[in-house]
């Protein structure tokens, strides 16, 4: 592939492009899902192709194809060039990008057991064991489990003189129990909502999350929720469990810190951002306890890589420092606009999509509280776990989240379980009221498979590391 890509780069240079990058991506996936005592899905797929991006007279062109013979590659480059050239005629802005040193090398996931070498039979048996345990719990109507494995081979060349290769393996999964009584549908998921938790590592990750041992508790909680009281509507202190806090970070810091969003490139679809350009180094995002970074170098991160999809090497970048907002997730085109260097956040999901600014692993650094002390220290509060619903405005300012389960805290003690918990708030106010973060013992790097962004939609894999955190005076339930 190296030869093919470098030859295409030479052809692009002959067209007098000011920049071009070309990626070949081959990916493979497998999904196994069971529902009750049935295998619901044993599916797999692979795709490969090439995506070419060119910058001609300050305008971009991107074209992709799965036709990898000489004719296909030539057509692909010509179409990308044609789009750029026509676009230059109506655009008034000349795109320029940050220069970077040529990159060479390769990057691979540290993976002990390749998940594709584990038999499908073993995966199915594991999930069926979980659903069997869950179905035995009286009151459970639907029990589900799924496992997903992904393998990516990516080759990248650019007119910078860069050629790099990356081989990434990812896997993960989760289980779900649903208890239904009349119109009351209650669900519990483990280890996280949706399809579970994911990691850029091998089958050892799935062994670590130990779905079987957690099945009973997951099912019992779903049933117990049917009996639980409704979540109160009140203002109180909120402790967020780690898997849901990951989503809170994702929606209220991750997305608004994407510099393309800030520059208005997403306004027509996902929206803008309250973190306008004047706010960098100049805005209190949260309390002094809040430190957030982007770190694509973390072991096992779903947002980890060697180089982003315009050849920028992975590096850790502070986004929020002791509560102050200090940087965006950026690219070679957008970073110079704020006089910074790219944080290396340009990513593509598949060969036929252009790179756009994405989250990497966006993490909330741990504090020094133990969870036990934090609960003891809470007079009137509520502890919520596992995402159920979310809604946030286009500037990422006003939000409302629902969780699967919650427990009331009264005078430093967990007193009772409540159902259908909801909370709402305004982003900087909410994070300014973050007064305690649990220590590194509870810090965990979560993997998310379904971050949707862009047009055409790209569903990216991102990571969020966090422990648990407390937020003071939060509107719980619906404001009366």
């Amino acid at each position, binding site marked *: 592939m190296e030869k093919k890509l470098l030859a295409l780069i030479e052809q692009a240079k002959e067209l007098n492009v000011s920049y071009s990058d070309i990626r070949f991506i081959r990916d493979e996936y497998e999904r196994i899902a069971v529902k009750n005592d049935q295998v619901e899905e044993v599916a797999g797929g692979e795709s490969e192709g090439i995506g070419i991006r060119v910058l001609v007279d300050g305008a971009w062109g991107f074209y992709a194809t799965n036709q990898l013979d000489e004719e296909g590659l030539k057509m692909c480059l010509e179409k990308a060039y044609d789009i750029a050239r026509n676009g230059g005629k109506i655009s008034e802005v000349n795109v320029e990008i940050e220069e970077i040193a040529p990159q060479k090398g390769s990057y691979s996931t540290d993976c002990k057991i390749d998940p594709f070498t584990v038999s*499908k039979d073993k995966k199915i048996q594991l999930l069926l064991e979980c659903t069997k345990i869950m179905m035995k719990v009286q009151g459970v109507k639907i029990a589900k489990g799924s496992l997903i494995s992904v393998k990516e081979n990516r080759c990248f060349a650019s007119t910078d003189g860069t050629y790099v290769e990356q081989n990434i393996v990812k896997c993960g999964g989760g289980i779900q129990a649903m208890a239904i009584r009349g119109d009351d549908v209650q669900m519990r998921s483990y280890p996280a909502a949706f399809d579970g938790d994911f990691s850029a590592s091998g089958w050892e990750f799935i062994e670590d999350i130990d779905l079987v041992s957690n099945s009973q508790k997951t099912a019992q909680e779903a049933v117990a929720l049917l009996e639980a009281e409704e979540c109160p509507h009140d203002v109180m202190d909120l402790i967020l469990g780690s898997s849901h806090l990951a989503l809170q970070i994702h929606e209220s810091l991750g997305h608004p810190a994407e510099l393309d969003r800030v520059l208005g490139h997403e306004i027509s679809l996902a929206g803008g951002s309250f973190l306008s350009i004047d706010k960098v180094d100049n805005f209190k995002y949260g309390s002094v306890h809040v430190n957030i970074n982007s770190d694509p170098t973390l072991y096992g991160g779903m947002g980890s890589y060697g180089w982003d999809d315009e050849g920028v090497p992975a590096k850790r970048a502070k986004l929020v420092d002791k509560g102050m907002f200090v940087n965006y997730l950026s690219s070679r085109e957008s970073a110079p606009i704020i006089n910074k260097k790219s944080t290396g956040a340009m990513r593509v999901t598949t060969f036929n999509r252009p790179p756009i600014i994405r989250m990497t692993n966006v993490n909330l650094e741990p504090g020094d509280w133990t969870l036990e002390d934090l609960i003891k220290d809470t007079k009137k509060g509520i502890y919520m776990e596992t995402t159920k619903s979310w809604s946030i405005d286009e500037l990422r300012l006003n939000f409302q989240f629902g969780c699967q389960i919650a427990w009331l805290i009264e005078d430093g003690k967990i007193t009772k379980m409540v159902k259908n918990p909801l909370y709402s708030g305004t982003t900087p106010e909410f994070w300014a009221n973050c007064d305690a973060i649990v220590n590194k013992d509870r810090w965990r790097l979560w993997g998310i498979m379904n971050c949707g962004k862009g047009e055409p939609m790209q569903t990216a894999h991102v990571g969020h590391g966090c422990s648990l955190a407390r937020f003071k005076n939060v509107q719980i339930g619906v404001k009366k």
Partner: protein
Amino acid sequence: MDKFVKLAKTLSKYALTNIPEGYQAQVMVTNTETETFRFAKNQVTQNASDTNIYLHITVNFEGKEGVFGTNSLSESSIKKAVEKAVESCKFSLKDEEFAGFAFPYELDLEPRNFSIAKPEQIYEKIGIIFKIAKKENVDIYGSISNEKTMLYIENTNKLQSWDCGDLNKIVIISEVETGGTGYSGRGYVNIEDLDVEPLTYESIQKARVPFIDKEIELGDHKVILESAAAATLMNVLAFSSFSAATYDENRSFMSGHLGEKPFPNSVNITDDAYHNLYRSLRIDFEGNRKSKINIVESGVLKNVVHNIRTAKKMNTETTGHALPPPQKEPFPLDVMMIEGNSSMEDMIKSVDKGIYITRFHYIGLVDEKKTTITGMTRNGTFLIENGEIVGALTDLRFTDDITRILENVVKVEDTVRNIPGFLWGANIAPGILTGKFKITGSKPRG
């Protein structure tokens, strides 16, 4: 299309000749061409175009299923893909609800021949928008995106079925100095017929409505939902309520209530791939012809949509609403709400005090069964007093059941529009006036 069908038949042959004795199989070949051009403040900020041919093989042996997909299309790659699907199938447990693949029928579709728009055609439209933005001194954001799909299905029952369709969308957001924004968006069929000038002005006009400093009380309000907002309700209901699978599993508000009449006569919802504002695929992903299905007729809950599997389980016929494998639940991709007989002017005039909502943002489905959604209004939320729009409001949060919104429909607009969906596809809808719509959050301006 002929060239594609010829190729697809060859690829299907590669696949089907490798199917072991006693197995049933379906081959699905898709050729998608997409192009997206996004713009912000008189700059084309991003574009993406591609062409991709993908082959999907589903095999079934005595109720055990295996699925594999690939876009490596050599004979040997396809053989390997079949082997992987067959291997998967061996590990599957028997699926008692497997109901087989489609049987051949006479495919009497009117042939279609159309090409995806050329980049210069799209740039020409965007150029017009840029000119208006400059002249009117507003910032304009948006996109034009087109997707053409050619679909071919062949199976071991000797069914061969194919069609092509497309989904073309334009979204325009205007922003003025006051911070006011306005939306206009459409799904369209031919780029030649796309008139961007009135659409651009529609969004500018909304952005220019001056803000009014009034706090909106929380609770129920009379609300006019423009086509875009109403179409979003259809987009959500398609997902939450209209499939036989959600119905059968008691996850739909319709479950057990077919034949009942929760809504007024003016509420009519169908799934209609043949509507002239769509150019949808007219076959489903099992190869069956899509039927036009009346879901809600004069307020009465009439039907849900089926694929072969749910039809067998519920002892009826498929309606041609299968999704691509391995998805097992049927899905109505062409849901639309039918027009009523009120003009938008009359609807506004009839409201003494209420709110006009252009569109929603980030709808969260809080309760699938109850159809409870929450979200924010966006790009044109106005206060109506004494039959007139008197000013723009800041975005409002709402939480309500879609069924409750529809139960309280008072008037339905006499015009429908095709509106790009937030997450998938597009839906046709008119504007509606509902007597009850619950606002759960508001902020005075400033």
